C-alpha cells in the first residue's frame, strides 16, 4: 500500500509536470489561430487557464490507473481477491470538497470574469451590420453607406472597436471569424451584437483564420458561406471606404 502511494505520487507529479510543459511550451503557441483581436486574449487566456488546471486532475486519474496496471495485475479470478476497501471513510468527502472548490474556481475565473470582460464593451468607433442569407453574407457600413456582398471582402481598421450587428433574413446562421474568436448566431428578426477590436493586420490570402465563416448549419451552401476578411491600418481603411463609396455612387 505504502509503495503504491509512493509510486502514485511520483507518476502523478510526472504526468502533471509533463502535461503542464506540453501545455505551456507547445499548446500555448501552436494551438490557436492567429490572434487577431484584443478580445481574443480573454478567450485564449481562459483556454490556457483551464488547461493548466486540468493537468493535475488528469494526472490523478492517470497515476491511479498506472499504479493499478503496473502493480496489481492478475491472471485469473482464482488468484484471490483485492483488498476489501469500501471507500466509506473520509476520502470521498475530501474528494467532493476539493472538486467543488476547483469547480468554484473555474466558475469564477476564467468563467464569470471572462464573461463580464467580454460584456463590458467600450464605445464602438465603427458600426457594421452583417446580414446573413442562404448562402452569403452582406456587410454594410451604415455611416458611409457602403455595402459588400458575397465574395467581396470585409475590411476592418486596426485598433478600432467595431460593433457588429448580426442578423439574418431567412434562417439561422452564425457569424464567426476565427481570428477574432467570438461567435454569434444570426437570427431572423433579431439583432445580436458582438464587439471586436482587431489588433493585427492580416488577410485571407495568407491566413485561413481571416475568414467570415457561417458556423450554424444552414443547408446546401453551409460550407461555402464564407467571406474573406482583411484588417488594415486606419488610413488604408479610410481610403478603401472612400473608394467603395465612389463605386457605390457611380452605380
Amino acid at each position, binding site marked *: 500500500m505504502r509503495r503504491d502511494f509512493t509510486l502514485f505520487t511520483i507518476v502523478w507529479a510526472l504526468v502533471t509536470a509533463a502535461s503542464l510543459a506540453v501545455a505551456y511550451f507547445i499548446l500555448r503557441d501552436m494551438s490557436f489561430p492567429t490572434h487577431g483581436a484584443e478580445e481574443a486574449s480573454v478567450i485564449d487566456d481562459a483556454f490556457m487557464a483551464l488547461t493548466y488546471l486540468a493537468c493535475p486532475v488528469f494526472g490523478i486519474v492517470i497515476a491511479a490507473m498506472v499504479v493499478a496496471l503496473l502493480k496489481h495485475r492478475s491472471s485469473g479470478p482464482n488468484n484471490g481477491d483485492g483488498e476489501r476497501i469500501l471507500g466509506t471513510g473520509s476520502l470521498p468527502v475530501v474528494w467532493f470538497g476539493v472538486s467543488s472548490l476547483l469547480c468554484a474556481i473555474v466558475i469564477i475565473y476564467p468563467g464569470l470574469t471572462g464573461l463580464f470582460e467580454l460584456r463590458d464593451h467600450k464605445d464602438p468607433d465603427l458600426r457594421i451590420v452583417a446580414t446573413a442569407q442562404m448562402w452569403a453574407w452582406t456587410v454594410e457600413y451604415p455611416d458611409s453607406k457602403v455595402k459588400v456582398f458575397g465574395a467581396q471582402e470585409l475590411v476592418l481598421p486596426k485598433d478600432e472597436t467595431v460593433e457588429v450587428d448580426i442578423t439574418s433574413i431567412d434562417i439561422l446562421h452564425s457569424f464567426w471569424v476565427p481570428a477574432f474568436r467570438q461567435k454569434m448566431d444570426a437570427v431572423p428578426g433579431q439583432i445580436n451584437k458582438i464587439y471586436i477590436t482587431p489588433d493585427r493586420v492580416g488577410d485571407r490570402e495568407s491566413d485561413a*483564420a481571416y475568414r467570415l465563416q457561417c458556423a450554424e448549419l444552414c443547408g446546401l451552401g453551409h460550407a461555402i458561406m464564407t467571406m474573406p476578411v482583411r484588417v488594415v491600418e486606419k488610413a488604408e481603411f479610410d481610403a478603401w471606404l472612400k473608394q467603395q463609396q465612389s463605386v457605390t455612387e457611380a452605380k
Partner: protein
Amino acid sequence: MTRVVRAPIVVGLVLAIIGFAFGAGVLGAIRTARGQSFWEIEVGMSVGYVFALIGWLAGVGGWQHWGREWFGLEAKPYTLTGWKRYFGFSPDHKVIGIQYAVTFIVVFLLSGLTAMLIRVELMRDGKQIFTPDQYNAAMGFHGITMVAVAVAVLLGGFGNFIVPLMIGARDMAFPRLNALTYWFVPPVAVLLIIAVLMGGWESGWTAYPPLSSLHTKHGQVLFNLAVITFGLVSILGGINFLVTIIYERAPGMTWSRLPIFVWGAFAASLISFFFTQALAAALLMVLLDRIAGTSFFRQAEGGSPVLYEHVFWFYSHPAVYVMVLPGFGAALEILSHLSRKPLFAYRWVAGAMIGIVMLSGIVWAHHLFTSGMAPYLHAPFLVLTEMISIPTGLIFLGAIGTIWAGKLWLQTPMLFALAFIFNFLMGGVTGIYLADVPTDLHLQDTYFVVAHFHYTIVGGEIFALFAAIYFWFPKFTGRMYNETLGKIHFWLMFIGFQLTFIPMFRVGIQGMNRRIADYPHEYAGYNTFISLAAFLLGSSFLFFVWNMASAWLKGRVAEPNPWRASTLEWQVSSPPPEHNFDEIPVITDTPYGYGGGPAHHRPFAGGALATEEG
C-alpha cells in the same frame, strides 16, 4: 407458405400498408371535400404514418396478445419458440434485450459505415464523393442513428436483459408493454431509410428551424415522425425500468444493495421517461409549422427559432446522460468484478448518479451561449453547467478507487472498461471548456465540439458498451467469445479512436467548423490524417463482427459464471432459464462480496440458484 404469411412481421407489414392507405385515404377524402387536392405529400405522409404505425403494432402481435383483451376477448398465447421468438412479440425480457442489442449494434455498424463515407469526403478539401446535399444527408443520418443507438443500446439491450436478473425478478414490471416498445423501433429505421432515399434532410440531427420548418426536403417530415416515434420507445422503456426497479426487487434487495448498473439504468430512466417529451414537443412544433401552417418559428408572429433551441436542448442535453449513465454503471460493474474488489464509495457513486439526474434538467442553455438568447441567462447556466463536474468527479473516484490495490484481470471487457475511464476523462475535461462562456464563444460549432462529444459518447458510452458486450456475452448466448480477437478489436479501436479524435480538438481550435462538406485548404493535412485514423478505427469492427458471429454460432460453451462474479445474474445458468429463478432469491448483503466480505452472492457451480444460508 401459410406459415410465412402468418409470420408476425409479415402481418404487421400488411396491416401497416392498409393503415397507411386508410389514413391517407380518409385525409384525401376530407381534403377533396374541402376543395383541396386529394394528395399533399407531407400531410399525407404524416397522417398515413400514424395509422400505418397502429397497423404495424397491431399486426406484429399487439392485437393478438394484448389488444384483444381491451375488447373483452381472450388474448392469444405465445406460440413462437426458438429463434422465431426474436422475430415476434415476446414478453420475455431476455428475448427483448437481445432484440434491442442486435438491432442497435447492426444500426451502429451501418451508421459507422456512413461515418467512414463522411471521412472519405473530408479526406481532402474540395469534392470527393458527395455533393453538399448528399453530405448533409449522410451527416444527418449518421447523427440521428448514432444518437438513437447511444440512447437505446445499453439501456434497451443490456438494461432489459440484465436488470431483472440483477434485482432477482422474473421479468420486467410490464412485459407486454416492453415487447410493444421494442416494436416501435423498426418503423423508425424504415422512416429514416426512406428519408435518405428521398434525398435526406439538410438540417442534421438537431433540425433547427427555420431551416427545418421552411426549407428542407420532404425527408424532414419523415425524420420528425421517426424521432417522435423513437421518443415513445424512450419514454415507455423508462417507465418500465422505473416501476420494475421500484417494485420487482427480490426480498432483501434494498436500495443500498442494488448493483451499480441498476442504479445507472434507474438514473437514466428517470431522465428518459420525463425529458423525452420535450424532444417530441420541439419536433412536433416543426412538424406543425410544415404541415399545418402554424407560426412557432416565424418572428413576425411572435415565434422564434430560439424557442425551439430551448425546448430541444431541454431534452437533448439530459439525453447525453441517458447515454452515459448506463455506461457508468456497466463500466463500474465490470471494473469491480474484474478487479475483484467491492465498488469504491458505493453510496457516493449512486448519489452522484442521482445528482447528475437532478442537474441535467437545468443546464440545457449552455448550448445557446452563441444563439442570441437573453444575456442574463449566460451566467446562471455557466454556473450550473460547471457544477455537473462535481458528481462526475465522484464517478471517477469510484472508478479509480475500485481498481486501486485490486487484482486486475485484463480480459477484453476489463480493457474496454479501463479505456472508458481514460476516454471519459478526456471528454469530461474538454467539456469544461465548452461550459465556460468565453472559450465556448470560440469553440461552439467547431470540430472541438465534435471531438468532445465523441470522447464522451463513443469513448465513454460505446467503450462501456463493448465492455458490456464482451462481459455479458456468455450470459446472453451461453458461449464464450474469442479472447485474442477481442483484444485485437480493443487495441485497434482504442488506438484508432485516439488518433482520430485528438487531432480534431486541434483542428477545431484552429478554426474548422463542423457539419461542412468542404473546408479551406489549410486544414487538409489534419483531415487526411484524421480520415486514415478513422479507417483504422472502422477496421477494428471487422474483428468484432467476426468474433461475435463465430462465437455465437460455434464458440466454446461457457460456464454459468466464467468471471466468478458475485452479482445475481451470474448465479443462474448461461443463458438463463426461462423464468430466471426457480426460487426467488433472498438477498442478505451487498452485491460486491470481494476481499473477505460476506459471501452471499458467491459463485457456485451448476445451473440453478444455490440456496445460501442466512
